[in-house]
């Protein structure tokens, strides 16, 4: 079992004075997965990540990373983990290249090998042309890329990336997604914390939802989506009439108008036959149908169901 999971958390807790930041969470991250770690600001995601990396010490519970207990086994664990933690953190008056080399030196990589790895990492994130520019002159997006450059500078078994696309433009976000997917293809596991649900939806194979210090739901993305009852959206010219017709045909079905005045929603799961028949019957009755689509099974829908609307600080 231990070899199947790169992170195994059991009843992990951390309290700051009166506030419980992480409340007895348990979580398993499968090897080879791209694991999305989601939650509102203040949910406890970063505290959890800091505990996994030995920056913060837990009050109780246990965590195993790459089959070793942390923080006790950090010396063996950390060389196998690439990490971005809560945004950039660099010496402002050193260049991007010097900053990455400084961290490589901390990881016992020096000399020509450090030069080669640092430049290669900067090229990978598109910073090669500004490698010798002081970090303080980097934009937020460039600093974020610099953090990612460090995280991927060495081949690692596990990458823990905390909000890797913060401050990036859409093209930059796409590049980061490609880097993450490629790291996974190379056999590494990615533990990705993000508040961008669509981003996680696009690339993650597994997901955990965290709110108010607790894991609300976790599992493979497909399973979560299958568990989620969706709805069929039908765009028509006369929604009131369509609603009455459908109500008569399918008395057990919940039908309501919205979210706009030309759309009605039917609480049904994915069923293409049903959609085809419904379209035919509506058109036969003289209702013009201009759109039909199943929805309600996005990660956002799952998030709203379990965590609630909005991303309010908890």
């Amino acid at each position: 079992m231990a070899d199947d999971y790169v992170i195994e958390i059991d009843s992990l807790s951390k309290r700051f004075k009166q506030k419980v930041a992480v409340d007895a969470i348990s979580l398993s991250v499968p090897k080879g997965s791209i694991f999305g770690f989601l939650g509102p600001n203040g949910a406890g995601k970063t505290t959890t990540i800091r505990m996994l990396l030995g920056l913060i010490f837990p009050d109780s519970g246990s965590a195993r990373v790459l089959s070793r207990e942390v923080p006790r086994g950090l010396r063996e664990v950390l060389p196998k983990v690439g990490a971005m933690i809560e945004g950039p953190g660099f010496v402002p008056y050193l260049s991007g290249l010097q900053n990455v080399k400084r961290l490589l030196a901390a990881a016992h990589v020096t000399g020509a090998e450090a030069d080669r790895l640092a430049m290669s990492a900067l090229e990978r994130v598109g910073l090669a042309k500004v490698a010798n520019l002081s970090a303080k002159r980097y934009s937020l997006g460039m600093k974020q890329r610099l953090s990612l450059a460090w995280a991927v500078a060495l081949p690692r078994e596990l990458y823990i990336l905390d909000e890797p696309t913060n401050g990036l433009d859409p093209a930059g976000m796409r590049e980061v997604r490609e880097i993450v997917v490629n790291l996974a293809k190379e056999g590494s596991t990615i533990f990705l914390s993000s508040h961008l649900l669509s981003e996680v939806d696009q690339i993650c194979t597994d997901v955990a939802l965290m709110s108010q210090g607790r894991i609300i739901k976790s599992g493979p993305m497909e399973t979560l989506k299958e568990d989620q009852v969706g709805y069929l959206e039908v765009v028509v010219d006369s929604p009131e009439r369509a609603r009455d017709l459908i109500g008569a045909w399918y008395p057990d079905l919940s039908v309501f108008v919205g979210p706009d005045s030309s759309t009605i929603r039917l609480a049904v799961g994915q069923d293409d036959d049903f959609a085809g028949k419904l379209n035919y019957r509506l058109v036969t009755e003289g209702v013009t149908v201009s759109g039909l689509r199943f929805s309600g099974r996005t990660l956002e829908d799952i998030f709203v169901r379990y965590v609630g609307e909005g991303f309010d600080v908890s």
Partner: protein
Amino acid sequence: MLVDELKRTFRRPRNLVVLGLIALVPVLLGVVVKTLGHSGGNGGGPPFFSQLTQNPVFLSLVALTTMETFLIPLAVSLIAGDSFSGDASSGALRYLLVAPAGRGRLLLVKVLSALLYTVVAVLLIAVVGGVTGAVLFPIGPIVTLSGTTVTNLGGVGLTLEAALLVAVSMFSIVGVGVFVSTLTDSSAAASAVAVAVAVVSEILGQIPQLVHIRPILPSTYWGSFVDLFRSPQVLHNVKLDLLEQVVWLLAALSAAWFNFRGKDIFS
């Protein structure tokens, strides 16, 4: 990793400005004395002041004497106080720890970097003082405090020994600065505490009623390098100074390790 830490210390513009400013002090002293003369006479002014125009080494020694009480502690406090706090405030500390640098290794590297900066800063004062003195004053006999003379080469050697002793005399303040920088993300606060320890120690050392605590104050034996210029040398206070600095440094680093080894890093 030590090399990269030294780059961080010596490439910081502020730290280079500090080095530049403290190097200016012996130049300023030399120019003032050359221009206005010195009316110190025997017993007036700091040690060696009356001999300042006799040989270049005396400018180095007067600079060390006058700067040891405040400017040198201030300079080393700025660097020591920034050791952990600077990386904490920029966020680099969490990346270093996860790299992984190792908490003990990081403490060792940061202390060594701050100590090396201290040695460089004090040697710089001595060297700039010597060079300025050579330009401004004649190279005359070097008369020790006991009235004997030493050769020029011997005088230079003694001056470098004195500079190294002054640098080591700052190790207690470096230790305090590094310790406090593990407590706070504010470099300014950590540096201020280290300077305050130096100043308060000097003030307490002047109060007759507190004579019994003088032996444990970090500044008590700061002037002991003067004893190197006696013939024969009187090393009693020099040895006490070295012992005291080592004890203070080890105590401060033990406190730093005790605090840092299990500290939650939020920065």
